[in-house]
Every structure is written in C-alpha cells, then in structure tokens.
C-alpha cells in the first residue's frame, strides 16, 4: 500500500503522528518551516505537573522517528488537489503527491509586548514564561538578578477580548504554578505572588501541584488581574491589581514580573490554512469536523488536524490527539480512500 502522508509541522503533534503513521506502514514526509524539530517543546525546560525534563520528552519523540523523512527549513509553496490526492510543492523544490495531509502547525506564543501596560520590552525586569524556561535551561538572563519578590501574571493575552483572544490558553495556570515553584526553589528567600483570574487546575495531579505551591513553597495566589505596571526609581516594578477576594485595590513592588503569555493560532499555520482553503473558527484556530466525534478531521477530505492547531492543548493532550489523528488517517487510507472512485464520491459520502 505505502500511501504518502504529508505532515505539516514538526512539533510534538507532527512527530508523534509521524512516528505512528510510519509504524503503520505509510510513507511519511514531515515538513517543518523552522530549522529544528520539536516546536515549542524544544524551548521548554521542564513540564508540569511532575517536572519531567522537556528534553527527555522530546528525545523520546525524536527517537521513534525512524524512517520518517523530515525536511526542516522548508515551507509549503503550493498545495493543490490532484484527483483524490494532493500535489504539494515544497520550497526545496521537491514535489510530493500526498494521499493524506496532516496539519499540525501548532500555536504561536502571544507577543507579550502587545499588552503595553505590562511593559514587556520596556521595563528591565519583565519577562515571559518562555524567557523563564530559557533561563531555567541556560541559567542566563540579565533581567533575573537575585529577585526577592516575584510576580506571575496569568492570562496574558488569554481571556482578553481586547488583545483578540476570548478563550483560555489552558496550559498557563499550571505552567505558572510550576514555574513559581521552580523559582522559589531557585530563590528560597523570595516571596512569590501569582495573579490569577480563575485557577484552572483541571488535570490529574494539578490540584496537588497547586496545594504544594501554597503549602510547601508559600506561594501567594491573588485573585485579580494585574492592570498596571510601572518602574520605580530603583528599577523595581510597581504592580497594581485588585485583590478581588477582599475587594480592594492592591499595590506591590516586585523585582521580577513573569508574564504567562498565552497561545495564539500560529501565523505560519494560517498561511497553510489559506493555501488549503480551510475554515477558521472565530478564535482563529482551525475548524474541526466535529468537536466531539471527529476532532482530528477538517471539513476537507484527506486533510487532518492535530495538536494546538485546533486549540490550546497540553503536551499529553497533543500527543493523544496526534495518535488519534494517526488512527484516523490509517482508517481513511486503508478503508475509505481505496474504495472511493473519485473526489466527488469522497466528498459526498465517505468523508
């Protein structure tokens, strides 16, 4: 059989789906526009809730990629339907005839400087969650200088219609709690505050992590959104929020402010979407055929979706989604695709 499957995006979803499809006997080609595989996972240090090293998770994913052809630094130049399949021209000149396409274009991190009131890129000691992960990996960041008071701002660019995102980014709460604990471990004398709107500790063990953060790390959770950040004359940050639990405005001086930038539909993914003529929902993520029963199928026959391309997901969610996509593709290629005579039939009945 050896049908060709094209995977767009080399993040966790693409890698996991690729490895599974390869094992199922398909001819898998993975295209990644950046120069490395792994997506955001490659930039992260540790993963919640257990603190698994991200590199270990990534190595595991990469380790099962035997036989998958991966092109990094490669863009999709054009993608056109040819019969039941897709004719894809890549930026490196290669043309592929793919029987199924998996779009795993993931997400972009919200650009925290867009929330001007937080002063990212303007104040000396304002960083993002991604910056902090890089610091954990490398130990280098001039903005982090033995802080004694640290604040974490949840929902930066999430649940914020003004910055164009009404929905929750799902992972930031748990990430903030994880990072807050890590910072407390790194700077034991520090007092750490987490400014949250709602704490979404939905996953297994997350509530334990939250309890530990309070009990063992003494992290203070303040229900209220940080609304204003200024720099004091000594370079520290003056942060204003409301403590909505006691209904009072609140001010605190901090040495470091970490912004939990949320997820956005990836810009490169949007380009793929427009090449394919795929529908976006209002939130910018790709529309799925059915939220409940066909999460990994797009409305176009032969085009599958996995990972954060269809909305914010945790790593385990993403991997499960990718495995789901692999079985969906397998079902399609072994069952539906050979039986369908032409595209019309494919669209009308089988999809």
């Amino acid at each position: 059989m050896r049908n060709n499957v094209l995977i767009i995006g080399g993040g966790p979803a693409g890698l996991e789906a690729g490895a599974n499809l390869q094992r199922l006997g398909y001819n898998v080609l993975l295209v990644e526009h950046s120069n490395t595989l792994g997506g955001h996972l490659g930039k992260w240090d540790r993963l919640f809730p257990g603190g698994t090293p991200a590199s270990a998770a990534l190595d595991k994913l990469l380790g099962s990629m035997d036989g998958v052809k991966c092109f990094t630094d490669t863009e999709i130049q054009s993608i056109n339907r040819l019969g039941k399949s897709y004719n894809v021209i890549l930026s490196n000149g290669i043309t592929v005839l793919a029987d199924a396409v998996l779009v795993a274009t993931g997400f972009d991190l919200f650009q925290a400087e867009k929330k001007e009131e937080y002063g990212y890129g303007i104040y000396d000691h304002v960083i993002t969650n991604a910056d902090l992960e890089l610091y954990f990996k490398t130990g280098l960041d001039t903005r982090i200088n033995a802080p004694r008071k640290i604040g974490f701002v949840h929902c930066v660019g999430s649940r914020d219609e003004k910055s164009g995102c009404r929905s929750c980014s799902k992972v930031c709460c748990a990430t903030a709690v994880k990072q807050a604990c890590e910072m407390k471990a790194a700077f034991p004398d520090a007092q750490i505050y987490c400014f949250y709107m709602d704490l979404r500790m939905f996953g297994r063990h997350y509530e334990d992590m939250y309890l530990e953060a309070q009990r063992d790390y003494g992290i203070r959770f303040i229900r209220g959104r940080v609304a204003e950040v200024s720099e004091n004359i000594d370079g520290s940050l003056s942060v204003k929020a409301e403590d909505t639990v006691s209904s009072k405005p609140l001010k605190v001086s901090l040495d470091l402010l970490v912004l939990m930038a949320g997820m956005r539909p990836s810009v490169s993914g949007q380009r793929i979407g427009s090449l394919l003529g795929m529908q976006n929902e209002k939130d910018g993520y790709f529309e799925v055929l059915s939220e409940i029963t066909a999460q990994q199928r797009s409305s176009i026959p032969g085009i599958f979706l996995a990972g954060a391309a269809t909305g914010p997901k945790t790593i385990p969610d993403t991997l499960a989604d990718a495995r789901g996509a692999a079985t969906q593709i397998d079902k399609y290629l072994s069952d539906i695709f050979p039986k369908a005579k032409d595209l019309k039939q494919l669209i009308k009945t089988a999809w």
Partner: protein
Amino acid sequence: MVDFGYGLLASSRINLDLFDKGKFDSLAAEEPDVRKCIACGSCTAVCTAGKFTPTSLRAAIEELQNGRDEVAMNMLKGCQLCGKCTMVCPRGINTRHLILSIAKIYSKKK
C-alpha cells in the same frame, strides 16, 4: 492651617510591601495549614460568632497576607473556638489552632 472643608483621604489600597514575611513564615511554621486555604468561605458561612460580629477566618488569612495585620486580628477577636469551621473546611485546616496561632504571633508587638 486652612480648613478647606475637605482633605486628603487615607488610601484604601492594599500595600503588599507592608506584608511582614517573617511573621507570616513563623505563623506557617506554627500552623502550616494557613497556606492551604482556598478562600472558599465555608468557615465564615457557619461561624457562630459571625452571626453577631464580623468574624471571618478566610478574610483574616487574606488580610494577613495583605499586610493588614490589625484588620485581620479584629476579624478573629470574637471567635469562640467552637470548631464548626474545622468541621466544614474542605482542606481540613486545623482552624482553631490556626486562630490561636494568629493571636499568638500577631498579638506580639515587634
């Protein structure tokens, strides 16, 4: 001094910089449960003294962490230690010992 008929108002704002970390840490050493509160308000809802006078353990914990020790102490001084709050606390906080510990640590002048 001129009487203008109005004047500067005291700020109602919480200044977290006034939070005494050392004191709160010693409270947490005395009764670690203080850090477990999720501010659900069950304690306040059932409070025996709360029927007659503003008593709220939940709010007191909050105020202590907001550096408003005096306010917190006032919220607990009417407590009769009856233990209803212990029975309803979803986190299993030793509320009575916590209240005693707060009184112990925060009644000491610096």
